[in-house]
Protein backbone atom coordinates (compact mmCIF):
# COMPACT_ATOMS: atom_id res chain seq x y z
CA UNK A 1 0.00 0.00 0.00
CA UNK A 2 1.54 3.38 -0.99
CA UNK A 3 2.33 5.65 1.97
CA UNK A 4 -0.17 8.36 0.99
CA UNK A 5 -2.97 5.77 0.85
CA UNK A 6 -1.88 4.38 4.20
CA UNK A 7 -1.93 7.84 5.78
CA UNK A 8 -5.33 8.58 4.27
CA UNK A 9 -6.74 5.32 5.68
CA UNK A 10 -5.17 6.12 9.06
CA UNK A 11 -6.90 9.49 8.98
CA UNK A 12 -10.25 7.78 8.31
CA UNK A 13 -9.71 5.49 11.28
CA UNK A 14 -8.93 8.43 13.56
CA UNK A 15 -11.93 10.39 12.27
CA UNK A 16 -14.19 7.37 12.82
CA UNK A 17 -12.81 6.92 16.36
CA UNK A 18 -13.23 10.58 17.23
CA UNK A 19 -16.77 10.71 15.81
CA UNK A 20 -17.87 7.62 17.73
CA UNK A 21 -16.38 9.00 20.97
CA UNK A 22 -18.55 12.11 20.63
CA UNK A 23 -21.82 10.20 20.12
CA UNK A 24 -22.74 9.73 23.83
CA UNK A 25 -22.55 13.49 24.23
CA UNK A 26 -25.47 14.02 21.85
CA UNK A 27 -27.32 10.70 21.61
CA UNK A 28 -30.02 9.36 23.93
CA UNK A 29 -29.32 6.47 26.31
CA UNK A 30 -31.45 4.22 24.12
CA UNK A 31 -29.25 4.88 21.10
CA UNK A 32 -26.12 4.40 23.18
CA UNK A 33 -27.42 1.02 24.38
CA UNK A 34 -28.12 0.05 20.78
CA UNK A 35 -24.60 1.03 19.83
CA UNK A 36 -23.25 -1.25 22.55
CA UNK A 37 -24.99 -4.20 20.88
CA UNK A 38 -23.77 -2.98 17.51
CA UNK A 39 -20.19 -2.97 18.86
CA UNK A 40 -20.56 -6.57 20.03
CA UNK A 41 -22.07 -7.60 16.71
CA UNK A 42 -19.20 -5.85 14.91
CA UNK A 43 -16.67 -7.85 16.97
CA UNK A 44 -18.43 -11.13 16.15
CA UNK A 45 -18.79 -10.22 12.48
CA UNK A 46 -15.09 -9.33 12.22
CA UNK A 47 -14.22 -12.63 13.89
CA UNK A 48 -16.38 -14.53 11.39
CA UNK A 49 -14.90 -12.59 8.51
CA UNK A 50 -11.29 -13.50 9.39
CA UNK A 51 -12.07 -17.15 8.64
CA UNK A 52 -14.88 -16.93 6.14
CA UNK A 53 -14.33 -13.62 4.35
CA UNK A 54 -10.56 -13.95 4.10
CA UNK A 55 -9.88 -17.66 3.58
CA UNK A 56 -13.25 -18.67 2.12
CA UNK A 57 -13.98 -21.30 4.81
CA UNK A 58 -17.61 -20.47 5.54
CA UNK A 59 -18.32 -21.02 9.22
CA UNK A 60 -21.86 -21.77 10.42
CA UNK A 61 -20.65 -22.46 13.91
CA UNK A 62 -19.29 -19.22 15.26
CA UNK A 63 -21.57 -19.26 18.31
CA UNK A 64 -19.58 -22.37 19.30
CA UNK A 65 -16.49 -20.17 19.75
CA UNK A 66 -18.45 -17.37 21.43
CA UNK A 67 -20.07 -19.97 23.67
CA UNK A 68 -16.73 -21.40 24.84
CA UNK A 69 -15.63 -17.94 25.99
CA UNK A 70 -18.99 -17.11 27.50
CA UNK A 71 -19.36 -20.33 29.45
CA UNK A 72 -15.72 -20.38 30.60
CA UNK A 73 -15.85 -16.94 32.16
CA UNK A 74 -19.39 -17.46 33.47
CA UNK A 75 -18.46 -20.74 35.19
CA UNK A 76 -15.18 -19.38 36.55
CA UNK A 77 -16.80 -16.29 38.06
CA UNK A 78 -19.95 -18.01 39.29
CA UNK A 79 -18.55 -21.24 40.74
CA UNK A 80 -14.93 -20.35 41.54
CA UNK A 81 -15.51 -16.67 42.24
CA UNK A 82 -12.63 -15.83 39.92
CA UNK A 83 -12.03 -12.12 39.34
CA UNK A 84 -12.83 -10.85 35.82
CA UNK A 85 -9.22 -10.00 35.04
CA UNK A 86 -8.46 -13.71 35.45
CA UNK A 87 -11.62 -15.27 34.01
CA UNK A 88 -11.73 -13.21 30.81
CA UNK A 89 -8.14 -13.98 29.66
CA UNK A 90 -8.70 -17.64 30.56
CA UNK A 91 -11.91 -17.59 28.52
CA UNK A 92 -10.00 -16.21 25.51
CA UNK A 93 -7.37 -18.92 25.98
CA UNK A 94 -10.08 -21.60 26.13
CA UNK A 95 -11.57 -20.21 22.91
CA UNK A 96 -8.17 -20.47 21.24
CA UNK A 97 -8.09 -24.17 22.17
CA UNK A 98 -11.66 -24.50 20.89
CA UNK A 99 -10.60 -22.71 17.70
CA UNK A 100 -8.01 -25.43 17.12
CA UNK A 101 -10.76 -28.06 17.38
CA UNK A 102 -12.83 -26.00 14.99
CA UNK A 103 -9.85 -25.94 12.63
CA UNK A 104 -9.48 -29.72 12.38
CA UNK A 105 -12.21 -30.26 9.73
CA UNK A 106 -10.56 -27.57 7.58
CA UNK A 107 -7.59 -29.92 7.14
CA UNK A 108 -9.67 -32.18 4.95
CA UNK A 109 -12.85 -30.47 3.82
CA UNK A 110 -14.04 -27.09 2.59
CA UNK A 111 -17.09 -25.48 1.03
CA UNK A 112 -20.54 -26.71 2.03
CA UNK A 113 -19.14 -29.69 3.94
CA UNK A 114 -17.02 -27.47 6.15
CA UNK A 115 -19.99 -25.15 6.79
CA UNK A 116 -22.15 -28.12 7.83
CA UNK A 117 -19.51 -29.56 10.14
CA UNK A 118 -19.13 -26.20 11.89
CA UNK A 119 -22.92 -26.03 12.26
CA UNK A 120 -22.69 -29.43 13.93
CA UNK A 121 -20.11 -27.99 16.36
CA UNK A 122 -22.62 -25.32 17.39
CA UNK A 123 -25.47 -27.80 17.77
CA UNK A 124 -23.26 -30.20 19.73
CA UNK A 125 -22.29 -27.48 22.18
CA UNK A 126 -25.94 -26.43 22.53
CA UNK A 127 -26.89 -29.97 23.52
CA UNK A 128 -23.83 -30.54 25.73
CA UNK A 129 -24.34 -27.38 27.78
CA UNK A 130 -27.82 -28.61 28.64
CA UNK A 131 -27.02 -32.26 29.27
CA UNK A 132 -23.50 -32.37 30.70
CA UNK A 133 -23.24 -31.11 34.27
CA UNK A 134 -26.27 -28.81 34.28
CA UNK A 135 -25.39 -27.79 37.82
CA UNK A 136 -22.29 -26.14 36.46
CA UNK A 137 -23.60 -24.80 33.15
CA UNK A 138 -27.07 -23.96 34.41
CA UNK A 139 -28.67 -26.42 31.98
CA UNK A 140 -31.39 -25.09 29.72
CA UNK A 141 -31.75 -21.87 31.72
CA UNK A 142 -28.06 -21.00 31.61
CA UNK A 143 -26.41 -18.81 34.22
CA UNK A 144 -27.63 -15.42 35.34
CA UNK A 145 -26.64 -12.78 37.86
CA UNK A 146 -23.07 -12.77 36.59
CA UNK A 147 -20.61 -10.02 37.48
CA UNK A 148 -20.62 -6.97 35.25
CA UNK A 149 -17.44 -5.13 34.33
CA UNK A 150 -18.81 -1.63 34.73
CA UNK A 151 -22.24 -0.14 35.19
CA UNK A 152 -24.09 2.39 33.07
CA UNK A 153 -24.76 2.77 29.37
CA UNK A 154 -22.09 5.36 28.58
CA UNK A 155 -19.14 3.63 30.34
CA UNK A 156 -20.16 0.33 28.72
CA UNK A 157 -20.40 2.07 25.36
CA UNK A 158 -16.87 3.43 25.67
CA UNK A 159 -15.57 0.05 26.86
CA UNK A 160 -17.16 -1.91 24.01
CA UNK A 161 -16.29 0.70 21.41
CA UNK A 162 -12.65 0.85 22.53
CA UNK A 163 -12.37 -2.95 22.41
CA UNK A 164 -14.08 -3.12 19.02
CA UNK A 165 -11.97 -0.26 17.65
CA UNK A 166 -8.73 -1.78 18.98
CA UNK A 167 -9.57 -5.17 17.41
CA UNK A 168 -10.53 -3.54 14.10
CA UNK A 169 -7.40 -1.40 14.00
CA UNK A 170 -5.09 -4.33 14.82
CA UNK A 171 -6.78 -6.49 12.18
CA UNK A 172 -6.46 -3.67 9.66
CA UNK A 173 -2.74 -3.30 10.42
CA UNK A 174 -2.22 -7.07 10.11
CA UNK A 175 -4.27 -7.64 6.98
CA UNK A 176 -2.60 -4.81 5.07
CA UNK A 177 0.68 -6.74 5.35
CA UNK A 178 1.51 -9.63 3.05
CA UNK A 179 -0.42 -12.05 5.26
CA UNK A 180 -3.64 -10.37 4.14
CA UNK A 181 -2.70 -11.13 0.53
CA UNK A 182 -1.72 -14.70 1.40
CA UNK A 183 -5.06 -15.35 3.15
CA UNK A 184 -6.96 -13.86 0.21
CA UNK A 185 -4.96 -16.15 -2.09
CA UNK A 186 -6.20 -19.17 -0.10
CA UNK A 187 -9.78 -18.07 -0.73
CA UNK A 188 -9.10 -17.80 -4.47
CA UNK A 189 -7.12 -21.03 -5.02
CA UNK A 190 -5.70 -23.00 -2.13
CA UNK A 191 -3.83 -25.47 -4.34
CA UNK A 192 -2.08 -22.66 -6.18
CA UNK A 193 -0.90 -21.22 -2.85
CA UNK A 194 0.64 -24.60 -1.97
CA UNK A 195 2.25 -24.75 -5.41
CA UNK A 196 3.98 -21.44 -4.61
CA UNK A 197 5.66 -22.87 -1.52
CA UNK A 198 3.37 -21.59 1.22
CA UNK A 199 1.97 -23.84 3.93
CA UNK A 200 -1.78 -23.30 3.79
CA UNK A 201 -2.03 -25.26 7.05
CA UNK A 202 0.03 -22.59 8.82
CA UNK A 203 -1.91 -19.73 7.23
CA UNK A 204 -5.29 -21.25 8.03
CA UNK A 205 -4.22 -22.02 11.60
CA UNK A 206 -3.27 -18.36 11.98
CA UNK A 207 -6.63 -17.22 10.61
CA UNK A 208 -8.59 -19.63 12.81
CA UNK A 209 -6.53 -18.62 15.86
CA UNK A 210 -7.09 -14.92 15.23
CA UNK A 211 -10.79 -15.49 14.63
CA UNK A 212 -11.13 -17.54 17.82
CA UNK A 213 -9.27 -14.94 19.88
CA UNK A 214 -11.55 -12.15 18.63
CA UNK A 215 -14.67 -14.28 19.21
CA UNK A 216 -13.33 -15.11 22.68
CA UNK A 217 -12.83 -11.46 23.64
CA UNK A 218 -16.28 -10.55 22.32
CA UNK A 219 -18.00 -13.54 23.92
CA UNK A 220 -16.45 -13.03 27.37
CA UNK A 221 -17.24 -9.30 27.45
CA UNK A 222 -20.76 -9.88 26.14
CA UNK A 223 -21.61 -12.28 28.98
CA UNK A 224 -20.38 -9.79 31.57
CA UNK A 225 -22.26 -6.95 29.90
CA UNK A 226 -25.66 -8.63 29.90
CA UNK A 227 -24.88 -10.46 33.16
CA UNK A 228 -26.16 -13.83 31.99
CA UNK A 229 -25.65 -16.61 29.49
CA UNK A 230 -28.56 -18.56 28.01
CA UNK A 231 -27.93 -21.43 25.58
CA UNK A 232 -31.17 -20.91 23.66
CA UNK A 233 -30.26 -17.31 22.78
CA UNK A 234 -26.57 -17.96 22.21
CA UNK A 235 -26.96 -20.99 19.96
CA UNK A 236 -29.95 -19.59 18.14
CA UNK A 237 -29.81 -19.79 14.34
CA UNK A 238 -31.00 -16.16 14.15
CA UNK A 239 -27.98 -15.04 16.16
CA UNK A 240 -25.70 -16.98 13.83
CA UNK A 241 -27.28 -15.49 10.72
CA UNK A 242 -27.18 -11.97 12.15
CA UNK A 243 -23.40 -12.34 12.44
CA UNK A 244 -23.10 -13.71 8.90
CA UNK A 245 -25.40 -11.12 7.39
CA UNK A 246 -23.63 -8.26 9.19
CA UNK A 247 -20.33 -9.31 7.59
CA UNK A 248 -21.78 -10.03 4.14
CA UNK A 249 -24.02 -6.99 4.01
CA UNK A 250 -21.25 -4.65 5.16
CA UNK A 251 -18.59 -6.10 2.89
CA UNK A 252 -16.87 -9.40 3.44
CA UNK A 253 -13.07 -9.52 3.20
CA UNK A 254 -12.68 -5.99 4.59
CA UNK A 255 -12.39 -4.64 8.12
CA UNK A 256 -14.75 -1.68 7.79
CA UNK A 257 -17.44 -3.83 6.11
CA UNK A 258 -18.45 -6.00 9.10
CA UNK A 259 -18.52 -2.89 11.34
CA UNK A 260 -20.72 -1.06 8.86
CA UNK A 261 -22.97 -4.09 8.47
CA UNK A 262 -23.25 -4.57 12.24
CA UNK A 263 -24.29 -0.95 12.84
CA UNK A 264 -26.73 -1.00 9.94
CA UNK A 265 -28.37 -4.28 10.99
CA UNK A 266 -28.66 -3.40 14.68
CA UNK A 267 -30.44 -0.12 13.94
CA UNK A 268 -32.54 -1.63 11.17
CA UNK A 269 -33.85 -4.43 13.41
CA UNK A 270 -34.51 -2.00 16.24
CA UNK A 271 -36.35 0.56 14.12
CA UNK A 272 -38.47 -2.18 12.58
CA UNK A 273 -39.49 -3.40 16.03
CA UNK A 274 -42.48 -1.00 16.59
CA UNK A 275 -43.99 -2.01 13.24
CA UNK A 276 -43.04 -5.67 13.27
CA UNK A 277 -42.52 -6.76 16.88
CA UNK A 278 -42.18 -10.48 16.11
CA UNK A 279 -39.83 -12.48 13.96
CA UNK A 280 -41.48 -10.98 10.83
CA UNK A 281 -38.90 -8.25 10.80
CA UNK A 282 -36.32 -10.84 9.84
CA UNK A 283 -38.18 -11.07 6.50
CA UNK A 284 -37.52 -7.37 5.93
CA UNK A 285 -33.87 -7.61 6.84
CA UNK A 286 -33.58 -10.75 4.72
CA UNK A 287 -35.09 -8.90 1.76
CA UNK A 288 -32.81 -5.88 2.22
CA UNK A 289 -29.81 -8.17 2.47
CA UNK A 290 -30.80 -9.99 -0.72
CA UNK A 291 -31.32 -6.74 -2.64
CA UNK A 292 -27.99 -5.29 -1.50
CA UNK A 293 -26.21 -8.57 -2.17
CA UNK A 294 -27.68 -8.88 -5.67
CA UNK A 295 -26.89 -5.26 -6.54
CA UNK A 296 -23.44 -5.22 -4.96
CA UNK A 297 -22.04 -8.57 -3.75
CA UNK A 298 -19.16 -6.74 -2.09
CA UNK A 299 -21.62 -5.03 0.25
CA UNK A 300 -22.32 -1.59 1.64
CA UNK A 301 -18.62 -0.88 2.00
CA UNK A 302 -18.17 -1.10 -1.75
CA UNK A 303 -21.27 1.03 -2.43
CA UNK A 304 -19.95 3.75 -0.12
CA UNK A 305 -16.47 3.51 -1.61
CA UNK A 306 -17.88 4.00 -5.11
CA UNK A 307 -20.05 6.91 -3.97
CA UNK A 308 -17.02 8.50 -2.34
CA UNK A 309 -15.02 8.02 -5.55
CA UNK A 310 -17.69 9.84 -7.54
CA UNK A 311 -18.39 12.58 -5.02
CA UNK A 312 -14.89 13.52 -3.90
CA UNK A 313 -13.81 15.09 -7.27
CA UNK A 314 -17.06 17.10 -7.33
CA UNK A 315 -16.48 18.32 -3.76
CA UNK A 316 -12.84 19.10 -4.57
CA UNK A 317 -13.88 21.11 -7.66
CA UNK A 318 -16.49 22.97 -5.58
CA UNK A 319 -13.91 23.83 -2.94
CA UNK A 320 -11.42 24.97 -5.61
CA UNK A 321 -13.99 27.45 -6.97
Amino acid at each position, binding site marked *: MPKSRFHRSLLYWLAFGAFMCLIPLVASTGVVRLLIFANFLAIFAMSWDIISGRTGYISFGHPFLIGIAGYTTAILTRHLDAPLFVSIPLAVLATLVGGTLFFLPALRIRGTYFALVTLAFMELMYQLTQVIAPKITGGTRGLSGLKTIILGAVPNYYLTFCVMFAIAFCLWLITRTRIGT*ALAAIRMDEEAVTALGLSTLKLKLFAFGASAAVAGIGGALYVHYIGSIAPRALFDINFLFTILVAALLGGSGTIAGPILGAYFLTFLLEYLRPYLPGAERYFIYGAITLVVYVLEPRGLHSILERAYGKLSPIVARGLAK
Partner: protein
Amino acid sequence: MTALLKLSGASKKFGGLVAVNDVSFGVEKGESLGLIGPNGAGKTTTFSILMGEHRPDSGSVEFRGRPITNVPTHRRVQLGIARTHQIPKPFGGMDVFENVRVGSMPDSIWRLIAEREPEHAEWEIMESVGFGEREARMLPGQLSMGELRKLELARTLATNPEILLLDEVFAGLTVGEIAQLTQLLLERKRQGMTYMIVSHDLRSLRPLVDRVIVMSFGSLIAEGEFDAVMADEAVREAYLGHARTEERGVVDGTA
Protein backbone atom coordinates in the same frame (compact mmCIF):
# COMPACT_ATOMS: atom_id res chain seq x y z
CA MET B 1 27.11 -37.81 -11.07
CA THR B 2 24.00 -37.59 -8.86
CA ALA B 3 20.91 -36.35 -10.65
CA LEU B 4 19.43 -33.15 -9.27
CA LEU B 5 15.93 -34.61 -9.54
CA LYS B 6 15.36 -38.33 -9.94
CA LEU B 7 12.29 -40.46 -10.40
CA SER B 8 12.74 -44.20 -9.81
CA GLY B 9 10.25 -46.88 -10.76
CA ALA B 10 7.24 -44.60 -10.29
CA SER B 11 3.76 -45.95 -11.01
CA LYS B 12 0.40 -44.31 -10.56
CA LYS B 13 -3.05 -45.76 -11.20
CA PHE B 14 -6.38 -43.94 -11.22
CA GLY B 15 -8.94 -46.70 -10.79
CA GLY B 16 -8.26 -49.10 -13.65
CA LEU B 17 -6.20 -46.61 -15.65
CA VAL B 18 -2.44 -46.86 -15.38
CA ALA B 19 -1.38 -43.23 -15.81
CA VAL B 20 2.31 -43.78 -15.08
CA ASN B 21 3.90 -47.21 -15.33
CA ASP B 22 7.31 -47.91 -13.79
CA VAL B 23 8.91 -44.68 -15.03
CA SER B 24 12.49 -43.82 -14.12
CA PHE B 25 14.67 -40.91 -15.22
CA GLY B 26 16.92 -38.24 -13.77
CA VAL B 27 17.64 -34.59 -14.55
CA GLU B 28 21.20 -33.35 -14.10
CA LYS B 29 21.91 -29.90 -12.71
CA GLY B 30 21.89 -27.29 -15.48
CA GLU B 31 20.25 -29.69 -17.92
CA SER B 32 17.12 -29.05 -19.98
CA LEU B 33 15.05 -32.16 -20.37
CA GLY B 34 12.08 -32.36 -22.71
CA LEU B 35 9.21 -34.67 -21.79
CA ILE B 36 7.06 -35.45 -24.79
CA GLY B 37 4.38 -37.89 -25.82
CA PRO B 38 0.87 -37.97 -27.21
CA ASN B 39 -2.14 -36.80 -25.23
CA GLY B 40 -2.83 -39.02 -22.23
CA ALA B 41 0.72 -40.35 -22.14
CA GLY B 42 1.12 -39.50 -18.44
CA LYS B 43 3.36 -36.41 -18.73
CA THR B 44 1.32 -34.15 -16.44
CA THR B 45 0.82 -36.97 -13.92
CA THR B 46 4.59 -37.44 -13.89
CA PHE B 47 4.98 -33.73 -13.09
CA SER B 48 2.38 -34.07 -10.36
CA ILE B 49 4.31 -36.98 -8.85
CA LEU B 50 7.53 -34.96 -8.96
CA MET B 51 5.76 -32.05 -7.20
CA GLY B 52 4.06 -34.21 -4.59
CA GLU B 53 0.58 -33.38 -5.85
CA HIS B 54 0.05 -37.09 -6.51
CA ARG B 55 1.59 -39.73 -4.28
CA PRO B 56 3.00 -42.56 -6.46
CA ASP B 57 1.60 -46.06 -5.83
CA SER B 58 5.16 -47.31 -6.03
CA GLY B 59 8.59 -45.85 -6.72
CA SER B 60 10.42 -42.87 -5.29
CA VAL B 61 11.45 -39.27 -5.95
CA GLU B 62 14.85 -37.89 -4.97
CA PHE B 63 16.10 -34.32 -4.98
CA ARG B 64 19.84 -33.67 -4.59
CA GLY B 65 20.23 -37.33 -3.64
CA ARG B 66 17.70 -37.19 -0.80
CA PRO B 67 14.33 -38.97 -0.85
CA ILE B 68 11.41 -36.54 -1.03
CA THR B 69 8.61 -38.97 -1.90
CA ASN B 70 6.75 -38.11 1.31
CA VAL B 71 7.63 -34.40 1.35
CA PRO B 72 4.55 -32.16 0.83
CA THR B 73 4.30 -29.91 -2.20
CA HIS B 74 5.00 -26.60 -0.47
CA ARG B 75 8.18 -28.01 1.09
CA ARG B 76 9.36 -29.23 -2.34
CA VAL B 77 8.87 -25.70 -3.67
CA GLN B 78 10.92 -24.36 -0.78
CA LEU B 79 13.63 -26.91 -1.61
CA GLY B 80 13.79 -25.51 -5.14
CA ILE B 81 11.34 -27.44 -7.34
CA ALA B 82 8.50 -25.53 -8.96
CA ARG B 83 6.06 -26.08 -11.78
CA THR B 84 3.74 -24.24 -14.10
CA HIS B 85 0.34 -25.71 -14.92
CA GLN B 86 -1.13 -26.65 -18.28
CA ILE B 87 -4.19 -24.57 -17.36
CA PRO B 88 -2.96 -21.36 -15.69
CA LYS B 89 -4.24 -20.92 -12.12
CA PRO B 90 -4.04 -17.20 -11.38
CA PHE B 91 -5.55 -15.62 -8.26
CA GLY B 92 -8.53 -14.03 -10.01
CA GLY B 93 -9.14 -11.22 -7.53
CA MET B 94 -5.55 -9.97 -7.46
CA ASP B 95 -3.75 -7.89 -10.05
CA VAL B 96 -0.79 -9.31 -11.95
CA PHE B 97 1.82 -7.80 -9.64
CA GLU B 98 0.16 -9.17 -6.48
CA ASN B 99 -0.05 -12.58 -8.15
CA VAL B 100 3.71 -12.54 -8.67
CA ARG B 101 4.25 -11.24 -5.15
CA VAL B 102 2.52 -14.29 -3.65
CA GLY B 103 5.18 -16.41 -5.36
CA SER B 104 7.98 -14.64 -3.49
CA MET B 105 6.36 -14.75 -0.05
CA PRO B 106 8.25 -16.46 2.79
CA ASP B 107 6.57 -19.41 4.51
CA SER B 108 6.59 -17.74 7.91
CA ILE B 109 3.65 -15.98 9.55
CA TRP B 110 5.94 -13.66 11.48
CA ARG B 111 7.93 -12.62 8.41
CA LEU B 112 4.73 -12.12 6.40
CA ILE B 113 3.48 -9.68 9.04
CA ALA B 114 6.65 -7.99 10.23
CA GLU B 115 8.89 -7.72 7.17
CA ARG B 116 8.38 -5.32 4.32
CA GLU B 117 10.29 -6.82 1.44
CA PRO B 118 11.37 -4.52 -1.40
CA GLU B 119 9.57 -5.10 -4.67
CA HIS B 120 12.45 -4.91 -7.14
CA ALA B 121 12.88 -8.69 -7.49
CA GLU B 122 9.25 -9.05 -8.56
CA TRP B 123 9.59 -6.17 -11.02
CA GLU B 124 12.67 -7.81 -12.54
CA ILE B 125 10.73 -11.03 -13.05
CA MET B 126 7.76 -9.12 -14.45
CA GLU B 127 9.99 -7.35 -16.95
CA SER B 128 11.78 -10.56 -17.91
CA VAL B 129 8.48 -12.09 -19.09
CA GLY B 130 7.50 -8.87 -20.85
CA PHE B 131 5.10 -7.34 -18.31
CA GLY B 132 5.25 -3.60 -17.70
CA GLU B 133 3.49 -1.12 -15.41
CA ARG B 134 0.27 -1.36 -17.41
CA GLU B 135 -0.03 -5.16 -17.16
CA ALA B 136 1.03 -5.09 -13.49
CA ARG B 137 -2.25 -3.47 -12.47
CA MET B 138 -4.46 -5.65 -14.69
CA LEU B 139 -6.61 -8.44 -13.30
CA PRO B 140 -6.06 -11.96 -14.70
CA GLY B 141 -9.53 -11.82 -16.26
CA GLN B 142 -8.29 -9.02 -18.54
CA LEU B 143 -5.32 -11.04 -19.87
CA SER B 144 -5.08 -13.15 -23.02
CA MET B 145 -4.18 -16.85 -22.74
CA GLY B 146 -0.61 -16.02 -23.74
CA GLU B 147 -0.37 -13.38 -21.02
CA LEU B 148 -1.86 -15.79 -18.49
CA ARG B 149 0.89 -18.27 -19.32
CA LYS B 150 3.48 -15.56 -18.82
CA LEU B 151 1.88 -14.68 -15.48
CA GLU B 152 2.00 -18.35 -14.45
CA LEU B 153 5.68 -18.47 -15.39
CA ALA B 154 6.49 -15.18 -13.62
CA ARG B 155 4.75 -16.31 -10.45
CA THR B 156 6.62 -19.62 -10.50
CA LEU B 157 9.96 -17.89 -11.15
CA ALA B 158 9.26 -15.73 -8.08
CA THR B 159 9.61 -18.85 -5.91
CA ASN B 160 13.28 -18.82 -6.97
CA PRO B 161 13.39 -22.43 -8.19
CA GLU B 162 16.48 -24.51 -8.87
CA ILE B 163 14.56 -26.74 -11.23
CA LEU B 164 11.51 -25.60 -13.12
CA LEU B 165 8.91 -27.98 -14.53
CA LEU B 166 7.12 -26.28 -17.40
CA ASP B 167 3.85 -27.86 -18.52
CA GLU B 168 2.77 -26.82 -22.03
CA VAL B 169 4.33 -23.44 -21.55
CA PHE B 170 4.05 -22.50 -25.25
CA ALA B 171 0.38 -23.38 -25.69
CA GLY B 172 -1.70 -20.37 -26.70
CA LEU B 173 1.29 -18.10 -27.29
CA THR B 174 1.91 -16.12 -30.48
CA VAL B 175 5.09 -16.67 -32.50
CA GLY B 176 6.52 -13.45 -31.02
CA GLU B 177 5.67 -14.50 -27.48
CA ILE B 178 7.23 -17.94 -28.03
CA ALA B 179 10.43 -16.28 -29.28
CA GLN B 180 10.49 -13.96 -26.26
CA LEU B 181 9.89 -16.84 -23.86
CA THR B 182 12.53 -18.99 -25.55
CA GLN B 183 15.07 -16.18 -25.08
CA LEU B 184 14.09 -15.89 -21.42
CA LEU B 185 14.45 -19.63 -20.82
CA LEU B 186 17.78 -19.79 -22.66
CA GLU B 187 19.03 -16.84 -20.58
CA ARG B 188 17.98 -18.59 -17.37
CA LYS B 189 19.60 -21.80 -18.61
CA ARG B 190 22.86 -19.93 -19.15
CA GLN B 191 22.55 -18.74 -15.54
CA GLY B 192 22.35 -22.38 -14.45
CA MET B 193 18.66 -23.10 -14.11
CA THR B 194 17.54 -26.66 -14.70
CA TYR B 195 14.39 -27.42 -16.69
CA MET B 196 11.95 -30.10 -17.53
CA ILE B 197 9.60 -29.06 -20.31
CA VAL B 198 6.43 -30.73 -21.47
CA SER B 199 5.33 -29.44 -24.85
CA HIS B 200 3.45 -30.52 -27.92
CA ASP B 201 5.16 -27.75 -29.85
CA LEU B 202 8.23 -29.73 -30.86
CA ARG B 203 9.59 -26.97 -33.08
CA SER B 204 9.76 -24.57 -30.11
CA LEU B 205 11.05 -27.28 -27.81
CA ARG B 206 13.99 -28.29 -30.01
CA PRO B 207 16.37 -25.36 -29.30
CA LEU B 208 15.68 -25.49 -25.58
CA VAL B 209 16.38 -29.08 -24.63
CA ASP B 210 19.60 -31.06 -24.28
CA ARG B 211 17.76 -34.34 -24.17
CA VAL B 212 14.22 -35.66 -24.44
CA ILE B 213 12.32 -38.55 -22.95
CA VAL B 214 9.17 -39.89 -24.57
CA MET B 215 6.17 -41.37 -22.80
CA SER B 216 3.30 -43.32 -24.26
CA PHE B 217 0.42 -44.93 -22.34
CA GLY B 218 2.20 -44.19 -19.07
CA SER B 219 5.51 -45.85 -19.99
CA LEU B 220 8.85 -44.43 -20.99
CA ILE B 221 9.48 -45.54 -24.58
CA ALA B 222 12.56 -43.57 -25.63
CA GLU B 223 15.27 -41.35 -24.26
CA GLY B 224 18.14 -39.46 -25.86
CA GLU B 225 19.05 -36.46 -28.02
CA PHE B 226 16.17 -34.73 -29.75
CA ASP B 227 16.87 -35.74 -33.37
CA ALA B 228 17.77 -39.31 -32.50
CA VAL B 229 14.63 -39.77 -30.46
CA MET B 230 12.48 -38.28 -33.21
CA ALA B 231 13.83 -40.82 -35.64
CA ASP B 232 12.98 -43.66 -33.29
CA GLU B 233 10.41 -46.06 -34.73
CA ALA B 234 8.54 -46.49 -31.44
CA VAL B 235 8.23 -42.71 -31.02
CA ARG B 236 6.92 -42.24 -34.55
CA GLU B 237 4.39 -44.95 -33.98
CA ALA B 238 3.29 -43.48 -30.65
CA TYR B 239 2.72 -40.10 -32.25
CA LEU B 240 1.17 -41.08 -35.58
CA GLY B 241 0.16 -44.72 -35.27
CA HIS B 242 1.61 -47.49 -37.39
CA ALA B 243 -0.25 -46.89 -40.66
CA ARG B 244 0.18 -43.12 -40.56
CA THR B 245 3.90 -43.53 -39.84
CA GLU B 246 4.29 -45.50 -43.02
CA GLU B 247 2.36 -42.83 -44.94
CA ARG B 248 4.18 -39.82 -43.51
CA GLY B 249 7.59 -41.45 -43.36
CA VAL B 250 9.02 -39.45 -40.48
CA VAL B 251 8.14 -37.37 -37.46
CA ASP B 252 10.58 -34.61 -36.83
CA GLY B 253 10.92 -31.42 -34.90
CA THR B 254 9.89 -29.29 -37.84
CA ALA B 255 6.60 -31.07 -38.38
